[in-house]
């Protein structure tokens, strides 16, 4: 286990190195370099040279990389010249709101996705299974933003049931204080994820149903309810835990789109606006943060899997 952990963390560090090099290199691909992006179209060559020198963009790539990583390790994620605030403080404002959205959406989708996935597996090839399969295929094929648009046009334009925009506030508490405004973003987000969990849960339960322990449980006279919920369900959950850790990129992507559709003031919206303004420090900082979260998620998923399932040996 210890050996596995060390090897796995070593891999994560290598991956982190590759990704940060790639991300920094990407910023250098901006037309005319990052300084041109910062100063705009009308910057003179003199100004560009001056700022290139000021920010160290005239130095070799590896020097820039080392300096950048050094700053990152000291907690300095950069400074947004468009917003006139540090990227860290921007994250401090936006991240809690995104976490609220992601957590609520994930919880709602799990509440529906897991039991319905189990139901589908137990009642496979029945009408109920086909209908729910159709729903999850719809979930896979529907662009998140289209679902958001449709829900807004139904529930806030046609019927004035929910506001079309997400709660606008600088504090998380007042956002949670407007639950009606949170309904549409959370529902849209949950539907996107529902397809993922229910499909996975269905196949995971199907795999478990043919295992020997199920036959043993039935043979000793356990009720069907006990077989499903006491044995199969608990074993199938192990793979969902893994999936949760691996699905961080999906969660991030979903959050960006939902925030843009509903104008929800979180990380995704801030990132999108930074992209349109070519505010490269924000882009760099946010991307690195999301990448680190993804790598940690993968790591936790692997470790969690090994801890939860004693049959897994490394």
């Amino acid at each position, binding site marked *: 286990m210890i050996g596995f952990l060390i090897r796995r963390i070593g891999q994560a560090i290598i991956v982190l190195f590759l990704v940060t090099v790639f991300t920094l290199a*990407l910023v250098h691909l901006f037309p005319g370099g990052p300084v041109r992006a910062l100063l705009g179209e009308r910057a003179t060559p003199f100004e560009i040279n001056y700022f290139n020198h000021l920010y160290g963009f005239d130095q070799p790539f590896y020097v820039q990389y080392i300096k950048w990583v050094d700053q990152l390790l000291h907690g300095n994620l950069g400074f947004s010249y468009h917003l006139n605030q540090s990227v860290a403080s921007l994250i401090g404002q936006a991240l809690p709101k995104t976490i609220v959205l992601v957590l609520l959406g994930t919880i709602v989708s799990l509440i529906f996705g897991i039991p319905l996935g189990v139901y589908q597996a137990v009642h496979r090839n029945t009408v109920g299974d086909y209908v729910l399969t159709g729903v999850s295929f719809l979930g896979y094929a529907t*662009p998140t933003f289209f679902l958001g648009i449709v829900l807004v046009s139904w529930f806030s*334009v046609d019927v004035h049931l929910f506001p079309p925009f997400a709660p606008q506030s600088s504090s998380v508490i007042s956002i949670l204080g407007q639950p009606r405004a949170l309904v549409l973003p959370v529902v849209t987000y949950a539907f996107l994820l529902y397809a993922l969990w229910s499909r996975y849960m269905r196949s995971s339960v199907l795999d478990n149903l043919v295992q020997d322990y199920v036959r043993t449980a039935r043979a000793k006279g356990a009720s069907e309810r006990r077989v499903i919920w006491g044995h199969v369900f608990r074993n199938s959950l192990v793979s969902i835990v893994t999936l949760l850790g691996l699905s961080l990129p999906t969660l991030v992507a979903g959050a960006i789109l939902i925030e843009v559709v509903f104008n929800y003031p979180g990380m995704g919206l801030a990132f999108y606006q930074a992209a349109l303004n070519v505010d490269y420090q924000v882009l760099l900082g946010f991307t690195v943060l999301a990448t680190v979260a993804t790598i940690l998620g993968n790591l936790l998923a692997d470790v969690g899997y090994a801890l939860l399932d004693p049959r897994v040996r490394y």
Partner: protein
Amino acid sequence: MTDVTILSGDATGIGLGEAAKPRGMARRAWEVFAENKLALGSIGFVIFMLLFCFVGPYIYNTNQTSTDLSLYLCHPSGAHLLGCDDLGYDELGRLMVGGQTSIEVGIAAAVVSVLFGTLYGAISGFAGGIVDAVMMRVVDAGLSLPSLMVLIIASVIFHPTKTVIIFVIAFFYWFGVARLVRGETLSLRTREYVQAVRVIGGRPLRSVVRHIVPNAIGTIIVQGTFAVADSILILAVLGFLTLGVAPPATDWGSMLSGGLTYIQGGNYWWLIYPPGVAIILTCISINFIGDALRDAFETRLQRR
């Protein structure tokens, strides 16, 4: 059953052997596939969509290159079956032109990423050892990238033309294909017929191209099918974020983005539902086809 598998493997070894190998396998796969009525219907729909987008404009002639503000948001009528958008483009005609972009990009991005991912994964898995470890860390890094964020950055950097978008999408998609094909390769490279190539002095590349890839073709085709649907969705997302192809060209996502502006102002349903439903139905059909193909190639599920 088993001797059939070995035979088909041998036939691939002798040459591409079109006549000897695929017929039996392909026919059996087709039998399984054809039983799936949903998949057959989906193929029908995809063919319809292709005709609609690529032949449709010749039948339903509309001006899709210059704006006409006198037709601003005109309602559906005899002259404009699905009305017009805010620049006076005929919406039905736009749906065809946008569909061309979406489908072309979807297919091209899928082909590029599957070709590259397959080769990369097969080489990595076949080489093994340190080469495999290094090549797979690159894939791990690619899969750890928050793809939508980097796609957004890439679309801001590169002026988005159709070709650029194809390669940008493919760049982020091939990692997954590579990992899948590598897994398949790991199990294939220990088979006797692959070992035999090494024994008789065949070069590694020959094993990869002639033996590993043809035997993993089922997985690759299925993955390629899903890749088309995924790429159409990714393009739709980019279009929605106004990072898609530049006007007057359009795609289904860009059309939706334009429609969003008018959602509050009145009942302009024709700006939203046609492109949205087109994306959903096209992607769902492609996914159904992919699912049926997986069943067809899955020898475990085959009777006898």
